[in-house]
C-alpha cells in the first residue's frame, strides 16, 4: 500500500450552460482581456488515498467520480494526475 495524491477535474459538459464561465469571461473582457475567448469553470478535487499501485488508485478515483463526484447529466470528469505521495 502506498499513499497517492490524485487530482480530478469535473467540468460542465460541452453544450451545457456554464453560467460561471460566462460571467468570468465577461469580467475578463471588461478588465481588458479582450483576447480571451472561451472560459469554462469546473471543480478541481484533490484526493489522497491509499492504494496498491497507481493504476488501482486511478481506478478508485474514477469510481468515485462515477458514483458521486460528477453528475453525468451535466458534467464530465477527468482523473489527470496520480502521484505517489512522499512517504
Amino acid at each position, binding site marked *: 500500500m502506498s499513499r497517492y495524491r490524485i487530482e480530478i477535474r469535473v467540468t460542465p459538459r460541452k453544450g451545457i450552460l456554464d453560467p460561471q464561465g460566462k*460571467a*468570468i469571461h*465577461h*469580467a475578463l473582457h*471588461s*478588465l481588458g482581456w479582450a483576447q480571451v475567448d472561451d472560459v469554462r469553470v469546473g*471543480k*478541481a478535487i484533490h484526493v489522497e488515498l491509499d492504494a496498491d499501485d497507481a493504476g488501482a488508485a486511478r481506478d478508485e478515483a474514477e469510481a468515485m467520480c462515477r458514483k458521486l463526484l460528477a453528475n453525468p447529466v451535466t458534467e464530465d470528469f477527468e482523473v489527470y494526475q496520480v502521484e505517489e505521495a512522499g512517504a
Partner: protein
Amino acid sequence: MTALNVPGTPRLPAAVDPRPGDPEVTDEVVADHGLSPDEYTKVKAIMGRTPTWTELGVFSAMWSEHCGYKNSKRLLKTLPTQAPWVIKGPGENAGVIDVGDGYALAFKIESHNHPSAVEPYQGAATGVGGILRDIFTMGARPIAVLDSLRFGDLRSPRVRYLFGGVVKGVGDYGNCVGIPNIGGEVMFDAAYEGNPLVNAMCLGLMKHEDLITGVAEGVGNPLMAVGARTGRDGIHGATFASEELSEDADESSRPMVQVGDPFTEKLLLEASLELIASGHITGIQDMGAAGLTSSATEMAGRAGNGVEIDTALVPVREVGMTPYEILLSESQERMLVTAKAGHEDDVRAILEKWELEAEVVGRVTDDGMFRVKENGVTVAEIPNVPLTEACPTYEREGIEALEVAELRDRELPVRDTLPDPSLALLDLIRSPNIASKRWIFGQYDTTVRTATVRRPGGDAGAVRIRGTKRAVAATTDCNGRYVYLDPRNGARAAVAEAARNLVCVGALPTAITNNLNFGNPLKPHIYYQLREAVRGIGEACRAFETPVTGGNVSLFNETDGKAIHPTPVIGMVGVIDDVAHLTGHAFREAGDAILQLGDNTDEMGGSEYLYRFHGGLVAGHPPSVDLLAERSLQQAVLAMIHTGLVHSAHDCAEGGLAVALAESALGEGDDPLGVDVELPDALPAPALFFGEAQGRVVVSCAEADVDRLLEVAADHGVPARRIGSVAPASAGVRIRGAGTEIFCRTASLADGYFNALSSIMDAAPAAATARDHTA
C-alpha cells in the same frame, strides 16, 4: 485616566515552567499583545510573577477592547437596562425579554467589521454564524436575522467588491442555516471607505422554561468541546479587532481568515437545542471571540468556579498546534458545554446523531483558577475572577473636534443652488442610500420557516409566533452623519427612528440591543463621540421605555488614522399583539386620503440632499429630536393602527417627506400608485420636500375615516393633517408646495428606485463582484 482596583485575588497561581519552544515574554512581546505597561504591571500583580507566553496570550485576548470593554464599560453602565419585561439584561450571550403567551425572545447584535474589511465574504458569513450561536446558546431557536451595513462610495471598485462579498456572505450563511432575513440597512458614505461596517442581529424564540445560560456549574462536571475542530484560524482575532486597520499592514500579521461552514452550524444548532432540552448539560457557550479562553473563563466566572483544561484533549484540525494557538483560535462553529458528570456519553450520542464531535477537554474546579495543561503538564494558571473582571477600565478625556463644531455651525449652501425639485426627487430616489435594497435582500431567504409576515423592504420586518396571534418585529437604524455632526442628538435620532419604524408596522417598541461602531477611543474627539452617543441612547431609551438588553462595542474603526462616522447602530425589537394589526408602508388604493403626522421644519443638516447635491457635504445641525413628541407620535400611530382603519404607515427618513411619499406610492413594485399632495407650509422648497425633520409619519386611510384618525392623533397631542390623496399610477407623483411643484411619472420613479443598485452592481463586473466564492 484612572484604573479600577483589582478585585480581591483569592490566591496567587502556582509557578509554571516556560513551555519548551514558546517565545520568551519580553516588553516588546507584551506591547505586541496590545497591553500597555500599566496593564502589564497589573497582570504581574495578579499573577505574583511574570506570565508565561500562553498566559500572556490569554490576558491579551481577555483584556482586549473586544472582550474586556476597557474603554466603554463605564459608559455602558449608564444605560437603562430594567423593565418588567426584561428577563436577561446585558452580560449574557444575548438579552431576553418576555413577549407574552409564555414566550421569550432572545436577541442581540454583533459586529464583524475588521474581518469583513479583509475578506468580505467570509467576514460577513462568520459574523452571521457568531450571532446565531449567541442566540441558540440561550436555548432559543433563531427565527430572524437582520444586517446593518456601511460602505464607502460605490463608484470605487474596491467598495463594490466589499459590498458584493458581504451581501453574499450574509446571504449564503443565513440561507443555508435556514433563518429568514427580515431587514437591515445599508449606508454608503465616503467615511466608511477603508473600514466597512458589518453588524448582524439575530432574534430567537423560546418558551420561558427553555432559557439556559453560559454557566460552568458543579465542581467536577466535565467541560466538553462540541462541534467543529479547532484550527489556526483567527488566532488573536479579538486583539486584531481592537486595533486600527492600516492600508499597508503586513498580510502575515493578520490572523488567518476564519472560514464559515453554515452546514456545520445548522447541525450544531439542532444538536445544541436538543442538548439543552435533554437535561444532560448545565451550561453552554459559543467559542466566539478569544475562543476557548473566553468561553471557559466566562462560564467559570458566572458560576464563581475555576476550570481546568487540557489542550491535548481538544480535537484539532492541524497537527502541532500549541496550547497558545488552541486557546486563542477563533475557528467557527464550536461550543463549550458543561455536562453533568456521568452524562458524557449521552452528550456524545446527541452530537453523533448530528454527525458532530464532542470531547471532554477539562472540568469545573473549586479553586477559582483558570488552569491549562498540555498532556498533564501545566502551561498556564491564572486566577479566573481577575482575568474576567479586573480588566482595567478607563474613563478618558473627551473633547469635541473643532472641525466638527465648525461644520455643524456652517451656513448651508442649499438655498441658492436648488435643482429643479422634480429632478431632485428622481435623483434622490436612485441614490444608493435611498433606493430599494432589493438587490441585497433578494439574495436573502426571507420566507423560510413560514413565519415572515413583514419581509425586508418596509419600515421593519416581522415574524409571527405560531400558535398565537402575536408577532415580533425588528429593525436596525442609525444615521452616522447625524451622529458625526452631533453625537448625542444623532444617537437619540437613531433610537427614535427605530421606534418609529416599529410602530409603522404596528409593533410596540419593547427593547434594544446596540452596536457601538466608533474610531479609536484613545483620541479625545472619538471618546467624546462615544460618550455623547451613549448618553443620547440612554436618554432616548428612557423616554421610550425601551431598555438596553445587550450589545456590542467595535472601536478602532479607522484606516490610516481616519475614523468612520460614529455609528451606534440600534437594533430594536417590538411586539405586535395581533397580526391583524400588521401594517405596511405601501399605499393601498387610489382615492385613499394621505395624512401627515408631525411637523415639517427648516432643517437640512446632515441630509442626503446635501450630500448628493453638494459634493458629499456632511454639515449643519442634524434634525433635532424631541423625545416627548416622538413618544406621543409613536403612541398615536399605534393607536391609529389599532382602530383598524389605517391602510399604510411610513416614517420620513433619509430624503424627507417627498421620498417617503414616493416610497409609499411605489410599494413593493407590483402595484405602484400615484400621489397628489399639497403642502401649505411656509418653508424653502429643499427643506419642505427633502429635509429630514424627525418625528414624522405618513399614513393613508379611506376617505371616510380621515376625521376619526385625526381625532386619535389630536388625543395624543400630535400635530396631524390631511395633505392629499393617493392617485392612480397614471397620475404620477405630484407634490405641490413652497411655490413650486414636484411632478414625476410613477414609472420613472419606479425604475430609479428599484433598479439603481442592480444597475451599479450587476453592470460593472469589477474583479470583485464576479469573483466567486463557492466552487
